[in-house]
């Protein structure tokens, strides 16, 4: 197993529950040490995929290789997992919970215990180490659970919706946890509905809808799928720019915003537009290349019908 081998390979993975196809012929590779986001509307098959990756359920067909092995159970001590629906033993204390799950991942009990206190202290829960988990707030419980899933310093971390239910401050803590693990060399995949997180911390994204992969690549690659847009504000003559061959579509200034928005054709360079302005003697007050955000890419790729489901 060379260092260059991907941490996770899915080849033609399909999962059917009766007549329902949850995941349809999904193939992807996750490079070692990367942070990958699994994006997709609700019911897209993210959780099913994650469960198959962890060998909690078996695919109907297709092949999975994780850390070079066909089953996650063979390398379970090197994998950390946070499931989508969060829950803890209510009567167990926070530190004991983390230590227990870490020891189930092969840490000896004393080290697991030490590690639990260390993590609770680092992520601001030191005072709650001896509190029963049912006494913690929902956000704290979730943090405890995340810490429980990574306490054994896994090489490969799977987080299903790690941000859901967290306030903005704790969402940032969660991002920090992910970055810390990545810095320590772990490979991380997580699923989310919130594009902003994916955009901030992911190296790569995998977009799934209705069980099919819609996109798999880096964020710049994803953004490149969207037509480029340019915002131009200036004197007369801007309307004429819409006739240019490089422009696919133009939107006149909306009320309150004096800028035209031009959508460029694929392969066209904003430079061409700028040059045309100079040639026509248009006085420019503003000329902005507008980067699409991941949100737009998402809506563009999975279609407006998924939009409601994804952001409800």
């Amino acid at each position: 197993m060379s260092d260059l081998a991907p941490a996770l390979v899915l080849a033609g993975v399909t999962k059917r529950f009766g007549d329902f196809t949850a995941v349809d012929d999904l193939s992807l590779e996750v490079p070692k040490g990367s942070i990958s986001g699994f994006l997709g509307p609700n019911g897209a098959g993210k959780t099913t995929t994650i469960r198959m990756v962890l060998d909690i359920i078996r695919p109907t067909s297709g092949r999975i290789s994780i850390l070079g092995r066909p089953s996650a159970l063979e390398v379970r001590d090197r994998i950390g997992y946070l499931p989508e629906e969060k829950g803890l033993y209510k009567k167990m204390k926070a530190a004991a919970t983390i230590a227990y799950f870490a020891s189930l991942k092969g840490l000896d009990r004393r080290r697991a215990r030490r590690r639990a206190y260390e993590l609770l202290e680092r992520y601001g829960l030191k005072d709650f180490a001896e509190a029963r988990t049912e006494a913690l707030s929902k956000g704290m419980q979730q943090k405890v659970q995340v810490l429980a899933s990574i306490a054994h310093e896994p090489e490969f971390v799977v987080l299903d919706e790690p941000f859901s239910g967290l306030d903005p401050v704790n969402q940032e803590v969660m991002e920090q946890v992910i970055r810390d693990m990545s810095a320590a060399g772990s490979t991380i995949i997580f699923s989310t509905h919130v594009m902003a997180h994916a955009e901030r911390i992911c190296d790569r994204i995998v977009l799934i809808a209705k069980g099919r992969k819609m996109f798999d690549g880096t964020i710049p690659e994803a953004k490149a799928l969207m037509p480029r847009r340019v915002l131009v504000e200036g004197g007369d003559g801007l309307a004429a720019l819409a006739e240019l061959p490089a422009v696919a579509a133009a939107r006149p200034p909306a009320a309150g915003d004096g800028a035209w928005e031009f959508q460029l054709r694929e392969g066209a360079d904003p430079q061409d537009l700028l040059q045309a302005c100079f040639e026509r003697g248009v006085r420019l007050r503003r000329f902005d290349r507008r980067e699409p955000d991941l949100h737009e890419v998402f809506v563009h790729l999975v279609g407006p019908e998924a939009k409601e489901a994804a952001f409800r």
Partner: protein
Amino acid sequence: MRYVLLIALREYAENVKTKGFWIGLFLFPILILAGINVPRFLEEHATPTRYFLVLDRSGEAAEVIRRATDEHQERRIYEACLEYVEKHPSERALELARSAAGDEERTRAMLEQLPGDLAELKARMEEWKEAGFRAFRAAGGHEAFLAAAEAQGFLAPDRPPFELPPRRFVQLDRVPGLDPQAPPEELVAEIKRRMKAEEGFEFDGKPVELFAVVVVPEGVFDPNGGARVEFWTKNLADDDLRDLVRNALDEELRRRGFAAAGVDQDEIRRIQALTVDLAAKDPTKKAGEEEASKSDIVRQWAPAGFVYLLWIALMSVVQMLLNNTIEEKSNRIVEVLLSSVTPGELMAGKLFGIAAVGLTMLLAWVATLIGILQWQAGPGSEIPALLLDVIRSSGLILPFLGYFVAAYLLYSGIFLAIGSVCNTLKEAQNFMGPVMLIMMVPLLTMMFIPREPNGVLATVLSWIPLYTPFVMMNRFASPDLPTFDLVGTSVLLAVSVVVMIWLTGKIFRIAVLRTGQPPKLLEMLRWLRARD
């Protein structure tokens, strides 16, 4: 295996920490202690002194009743004296008791001499008690008794003073404010009014309430009978006084009847004391030892106690198993667990962990049971001592623990399967109904099996694996339990346990990750047929 152990350890630690476990642990000895002591306590302390009035038109009955209540009080004093000596023994008395108890030969000989039939034994004990009481009375009552005990050096020097027990019944001849010479109808009407109004009166400087009025007509001791005595009381539940009065009057009536017929007083007493000596014998015992002893009877019934214990312990631990499984499932903890361990390891860990909890509880119970019996066993309370002897000598403990483990594994299969298909306890309740019905059978049949330990009911039930542990435990009472039954049912039980665990494993693996509605029975059957 390491993971199984880790899971088992957690299950054990968490369940042993719960309040329910400790409550169960302490409730049992408390119940036993209460069962032994509360009736005694109530008898001694909770019954107030009853004041009653005798309106005697015969001129003789009041005296007869007074003698009876006096004797009743004297008996209470006698018992209090015995207890006092027993509670405050001197070193010398303890030493004597120890040397007597240490003499096993003698104890055994004494036990063997006891009659085997319970009724017979009771009669014999009454006789002894009666003889003791007569001697006590003849010697001059409690003062003479205590002086003698003191003189013998049987009493501890630092004991509290002896307290006379309060009288249970105080007989009045007249109630203050009432003219006893008034016509009886008037008196009765007035007294009824007072009793209805709960109007008390002063007695010995204390306000007291009239408990009952006995109206005795003239000619109550007419040898031809027919006189009607009225006993007026608001409290019909406490019939001690009523019985006392009736017995006293009956006895006097009969005594006079015999006397009228010319029978000698001593002769009457002798005839009344006659009994038939009915000895219960057991043909399976060696010649000379056939007499079934009291401990044989206890031996026959002790397994029923164990069955009950087994049932309660089983119910409490499988309940834990169910709760834990549902908690893990509803919290989705199970998903994290299954990313770390296989379903088989999870199940095995839970089974072992909870089994250890159950065994801890049982051992604690058996230990406290023996402890309490040892503590309560003493002169005057030989049942605990006998029970103790039977528990020690009968070898019931080992099969008991064995059957507990087997029953646990069998039933835990059912409960784990239920737990794994349900998301909430409420859903589980639906499945629990039929399971509870099935589990009630051993309890319902428990009392019948010792009567006929090798009968049809017992034999049939012991071949049903779900009931084998209970019924076989029960059948240990039988001195000639067929070896075929014992071995055969054990093998069947072991096979059933293996099959049950295997089936549960299949259901557990599939069901534990499922969400939503519990599956239909048909669907579960399909899972059983499915290969991995």
